[in-house]
């Protein structure tokens, strides 16, 4: 009876958190601490990896102490993390050789173009599932090797280690240098079929294999923690979006989760074979449990969703808090003919058009701020529809239920519109912290705290559900209008303005 809880450490972009869960998957205790965002130049974003580790130690201890839980009551600890953020440290001293380069950082812009060469951004796509882009870790690591004094030599002599944030935290906790398949899948360096580092890509990017961690499953005991959590098995690692997929118990092919925050991340479980996207989605890992076959996924992200509501609040002042968008949108029956395509920095999945810019269209003298508020909410729904249509086409599976989480799920009107435009059920689970829950589940499974995934499924409960109420003819017409609006965003940028 002594080991009653599983701890999840969520090392996120703005903060680190620790949540303790009980056997029913309920939150017992939470602690959180923000870290600094370091902006050395426009477009550059860094984190201090030592500061992050110090915060992780504090939030773990606080979360336990807040609820009078001792480390020996913790059955396992799982890690979930901001993906792609890259850190390199000295093997002997543990000191980072440079600040961690954050996923949003665009310093590798020229480098990725150079790496694409004549074949362009899809040069490595068949092997790793990803187009060359500034987000991913491989090019960031290459940048460090090229730009930190003497680093390449130290790397070739095996004196330094590379990791994404999961690897950094696990190394700090246990001294083991490992990562899991989901985090490795975001480096561009892992081969999707073998789940090993791809030597051709390593050669092409000029990365010595000696700095790379061992790729393990998402759910197994990597080692025992030292320090405060002394003796507790460290037993899972999942990138944040993959953890949310797992926490939403999307265990079957065709299950889709959507995390609605400032941006939106949609991930579909596609089963044990990787699906190559014909429609601009990314092929990635869902999760891998111990020795069981890896589960693959398709991912489509939407850059501007919740941030459009913030834009309405901060740049137009139409609302004073984000939740008021629902109040304002409910002052009208429909969008009044108005459509808002927030292509603020181009269109992403499934269009991938960097020459696009945002439009508000269909304006007449009739349109008021309520209609614009509605168009803002509808923009999130139609962008979801575009990604879901692409997923359905690629995976040849029809979506029936979308499992949602994230801050925007508090907006009931948005959830109803989402159900209407997708013509599918939209379901919000009882525990909104699906990212942490996913990491806890994977860790708990690894140590036998939970016997199997069926038990986890039984823990999953609906907190709310929305079903489609829109007439098919209306849906058709609105989608047609949305597509017209999307066309009007294209070609706004007429030449490369870099």
């Amino acid at each position, binding site marked *: 009876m002594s080991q009653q809880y599983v701890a999840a450490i969520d090392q996120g972009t703005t903060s680190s958190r620790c949540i303790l869960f009980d056997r029913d998957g309920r939150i017992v205790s939470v602690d959180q601490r923000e870290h600094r965002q370091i902006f050395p130049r426009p477009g550059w974003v860094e984190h201090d990896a030592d500061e992050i580790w110090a915060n992780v130690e504090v939030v773990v201890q606080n979360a336990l102490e807040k609820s009078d839980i001792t480390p020996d009551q913790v059955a396992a600890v799982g890690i979930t993390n901001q993906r792609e953020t890259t850190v390199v440290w000295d093997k002997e001293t543990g000191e980072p050789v440079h600040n961690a380069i954050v996923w949003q950082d665009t310093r590798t812009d020229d480098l990725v173009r150079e790496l694409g060469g004549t074949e362009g951004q899809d040069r490595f796509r068949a092997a790793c599932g990803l187009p060359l882009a500034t987000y991913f870790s491989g090019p960031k690591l290459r940048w460090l090797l090229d730009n930190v004094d003497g680093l390449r030599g130290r790397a070739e002599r095996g004196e330094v280690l590379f990791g994404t944030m999961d690897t950094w935290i696990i190394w700090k906790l246990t001294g083991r240098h490992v990562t899991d398949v989901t985090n490795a899948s975001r480096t561009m360096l892992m081969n999707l079929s073998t789940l090993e580092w791809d030597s051709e890509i390593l050669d092409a990017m000029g990365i010595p294999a000696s700095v790379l961690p061992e790729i393990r499953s998402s759910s197994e005991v990597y080692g025992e923690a030292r320090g405060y959590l002394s003796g507790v098995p460290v037993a899972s690692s999942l990138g944040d979006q993959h953890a949310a997929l797992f926490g939403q118990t999307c265990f079957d092919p065709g299950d889709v989760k959507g995390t609605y925050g400032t941006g939106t991340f949609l991930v579909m479980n596609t089963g044990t074979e990787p699906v190559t996207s014909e429609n601009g989605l990314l092929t990635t890992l869902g999760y891998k449990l111990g020795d069981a076959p890896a589960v693959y996924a398709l991912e489509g992200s939407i850059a501007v969703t919740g941030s459009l509501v913030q834009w309405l609040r901060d740049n137009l002042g139409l609302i004073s*808090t*984000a939740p008021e968008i629902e*109040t304002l949108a409910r002052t009208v029956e429909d969008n009044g003919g108005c459509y808002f395509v927030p292509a603020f920095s181009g269109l992403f999945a499934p269009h991938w058009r960097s020459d696009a810019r945002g439009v508000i269209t269909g304006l007449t003298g009739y349109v008021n701020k309520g209609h614009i508020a509605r168009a803002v909410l509808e923009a999130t729904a139609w962008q979801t529809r575009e990604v879901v249509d692409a997923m359905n086409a690629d995976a040849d599976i029809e979506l029936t239920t979308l499992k949602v989480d994230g801050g925007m*799920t*508090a907006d*009931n009107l948005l959830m109803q519109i989402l159900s209407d435009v997708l013509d599918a059920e939209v379901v919000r689970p009882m525990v909104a*912290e699906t990212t942490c829950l996913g990491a806890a589940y994977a860790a708990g499974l690894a140590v036998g705290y939970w016997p199997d995934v069926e038990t986890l499924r039984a823990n999953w409960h609906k*907190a*709310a*559900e929305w079903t489609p109420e829109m007439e098919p003819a209306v849906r058709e017409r609105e989608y047609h209008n949305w597509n017209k609006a999307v066309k009007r965003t294209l070609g706004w940028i007429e030449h490369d303005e870099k």
Partner: protein
Amino acid sequence: MPGRIQSIERAAAILRLLAGGARGLSLAEISRSLELPKGTVLGILRTLQHVGFVEQDPESGRYRLGGGMLSLGTRYLDGNELRTRALNWADTLASRSGESVRIGTPHQGRVLVVHHVFRPDSSRQTLDVGTLLPLHATALGKVLMAFDPLVTPLEEASAEEGPVVLPSYTRFTITSPGELEKQLEEVRDNGWAWEAEELVDGEVSLAAPIRDRRGTAVGAIGVRGAVERLRGPDNRLDMEQVSYVRDAARAISRELGATPY
């Protein structure tokens, strides 16, 4: 530096007193509490009434805070915002209690459901956000009335001359304003409310107030479920459930800036 003005200090004391006396106070009660002559109190009350800071109930003659006072320095709490701030805590309550959770705010003499979390089982349930519930037959409504003097039941005109008629939903619904008032007094003492089969046969609900940073009750959170589950064998409420509801209410109040003491 000019001295303090006694009558303004007295006016402030009266306003503070009225803010605490949920159902309004009589002239005699106010003058007794503040140890001031009735004439003095009446003069101040009339002045405050004139500027809209105090209202007098035409029936009972009791004084209470006026609408002008309540709109001073307060930003109206948007129901959608309340839901957003309460989301995690309402989920936790549903998961701990095993029952469905609702958050209500007062709306034109009734309770407006601004948030609803399903009971955590696999039964089919429908979201009832936006529904209006009667104040006097729900725990949410009793909490709202007990802690906010301006919340009163929708008055339904009765056929014959007479006082307010509270509509009946079951044989247990409280229809007498006097009895309701007695119950609200209890609710204020306890800090939470419950109701057994007063709205729907076989169902029990219980609720506690959500307060903002000024201590004003801006809403109520509660659970509703089958009488067999929520009421113990001795016909009393399951006190564990009460503590879950009060924990959730306190947590949301903290989220809104209320101090926990």
